[in-house]
């Protein structure tokens, strides 16, 4: 079986600085994979490489076996990979409902359609409402997204990310900047909306990681030093030394 996402010898340099120094990683279908690592380890860069925001210096990225080299973000998205952002990235002036509806358009085959009315499509309206129901924002449906609370905006961001029906979902620090109760809420939300999908996430909060992921990779200075189940990674001496030791004591 081909991996949902496979990275081989991936490197990325900005000028002379090598941020990603040869990452090999295979994430199986339906796996829930967390990438952790200290600040500045290159987690976000790795994300941006995979989703086509940056282009890699060397190495290959394969999505369901297809090489993503030279593909623009929108092409990668069409191949079934969707991502959220570390900094909330929604359409603030549009209503919550429109935000979700826009994210359904391509997946529902509308493409660059300029002859059918979005308001008249039952499937589109119902689909968007169903997503809103899933992310518990039905009550906020007709408000501009920009006025929502931070946690609600994060939920909307996740809603937009999953709406297109992509089977590989990448979440960049979904709980960054949230209170404990908000975090618990978002973790539950992520768990329900990503059932049956491949989940790749970058996260700082170890509680979130252990609650959501079944596989963990530890990225330190642009290299993956360990990959495995939570238990295996927890037990790995290299990880203990480089990262987990300190953090786990805090928790």
């Amino acid at each position, binding site marked *: 079986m081909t991996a949902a996402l496979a990275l081989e010898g991936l490197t990325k340099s900005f000028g002379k600085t090598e941020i990603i120094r040869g990452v090999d990683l295979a994430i199986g279908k339906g796996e829930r994979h967390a990438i952790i690592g200290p600040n500045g380890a290159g987690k976000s860069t790795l994300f941006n490489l995979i989703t086509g925001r940056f282009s890699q210096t060397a190495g290959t990225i394969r999505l369901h076996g297809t090489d993503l080299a030279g593909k623009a973000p929108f092409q990668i998205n069409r191949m079934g990979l969707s991502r959220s952002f570390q900094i909330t990235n929604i359409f603030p002036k549009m209503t919550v409902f429109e935000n979700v509806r826009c994210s359904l358009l391509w997946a529902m085959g*509308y493409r660059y359609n*300029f002859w059918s009315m979005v308001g008249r499509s039952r499937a589109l309206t119902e689909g968007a409402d169903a997503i809103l129901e899933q992310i518990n924002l039905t009550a906020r449906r007709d408000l501009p997204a920009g006025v929502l609370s931070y946690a609600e905006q994060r939920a909307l961001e996740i809603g937009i990310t999953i709406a297109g029906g992509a089977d590989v979902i990448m979440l960049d620090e979904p709980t960054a900047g949230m209170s404990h109760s908000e975090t618990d809420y978002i973790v539950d939300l992520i768990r329900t909306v990503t059932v049956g999908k491949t989940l790749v996430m970058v996260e700082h909060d170890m509680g979130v990681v252990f609650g959501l992921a079944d596989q963990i990779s530890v990225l330190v200075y642009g290299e993956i030093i360990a990959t495995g189940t939570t238990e295996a990674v927890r037990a790995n001496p290299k990880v203990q030394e480089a990262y987990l030791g300190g953090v786990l004591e805090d928790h």
Partner: protein
Amino acid sequence: MSDQITSEPTKPAQRMRAGSMVLPLAPWLIAAVALVVLPFIFTNNSAITIMNQMAITIIFALAYNMLLGQGGMLSFGHAVYAGVGGFACMHIINAEDFFAGLPLPLLPIFGGLFGMGLATIVGSFSTRKAGTVFAMISLGVGELIAACSVIIVAFFGGEEGISGDRTYGLPFFGVEFLQQIEVYYLIAAWLMISAILMYLYSRTPMGRMANAVRDNPERAEFLGYSARWVRFYSFVASGFFAGIAGALFAINYEILTEENLNTTQSGIILLVTFLGGVGFFFGPILGAIVFTLVQTVLSLQTELWAFYLGIIFVATVMFFPGGLAGLLMMHVPAWRMGKIGHLAWPYLKTLGGGLIGSLGAAALIEMVFHLRHASIGDHEMTLFWTTFDSHTVLPWIIAGVTTLIGFGICRATAPALVEAWNEANAAPKVAP
């Protein structure tokens, strides 16, 4: 996924949608009736000329707002798409054999297609980026084509432009469009068609994604849409409707010159659209109506109308970036709560003061202008139906005092207005 959906009419959102099926039609019906009735109210020829110009400007401004308001693309050279559409139509009018078989009311389609064709060519490279780069390319291409009008004489007719006779077309149900009023109804019909089409376009997936790309191009890319192609399609659609406006211009005036292409023309349409308000669909309509009226009235009254217009424009950009439509829509919450009436009196006081002050200031400006530029010995000037000597002190004092008093009232009553405003927009304290 879909089995989770239940249509619950108790949900406020769905109830609203169910009830609003009739409402959206109302403004369109009113507009259509108004377009039919207007010539019976304003019957003289000059009024119809103004209305024709207004209608053409509305179409052009709406087309422009497809870019600026809905797509977030600022074009400094949009006149060329209307202009080229118009020039093309003029050539069709002059192609006697072809035109004799073509009913005039169908001509704007050709204008639209030519505008669209040009937009396709230019858009293919100009829409790669939004923002400043797009604005600069639009300016450069606009200047280039405007400058070409003197060089490519075969198409643009050089300095004198090209003209033709619209009445040689195939009579349309017996109508030959000799009369201004017949042209009015032709333009009005195209106004309705284009406005409805542009409105519907904004409701299609492309229209929605144009908004999405305007607000957050990167996010749109991660939803599967290429920001560039979304911009491109908006640009092409806008070019089509601009071409229709150009064709109607050709029909109405029967002459096109370099003036239809140049940056001034492009600047005017930007001004009209922005004054009206880019945030709402009806903004440009409002802008075109107000602009045409103000231009007609002011330019008859004063040489300095462009100066006043410049001041109004800069003030709008600085203080009311939502334009007229934005100002109007600000009052919707107070209207909904039924408290709009509380604003009337404070508004009257402050705006009345402001109006008096502005008129006083305008009088001062006019007098300075007269003092500086009237021919030597010409001391007499007429202002607000009063004739006086601009070299005496009294008029200056009157104008100065009026200005001070007017703005004084404006300033003194402003806090009360702000208070009334806050009061009118405060949420009701006790839930009903």
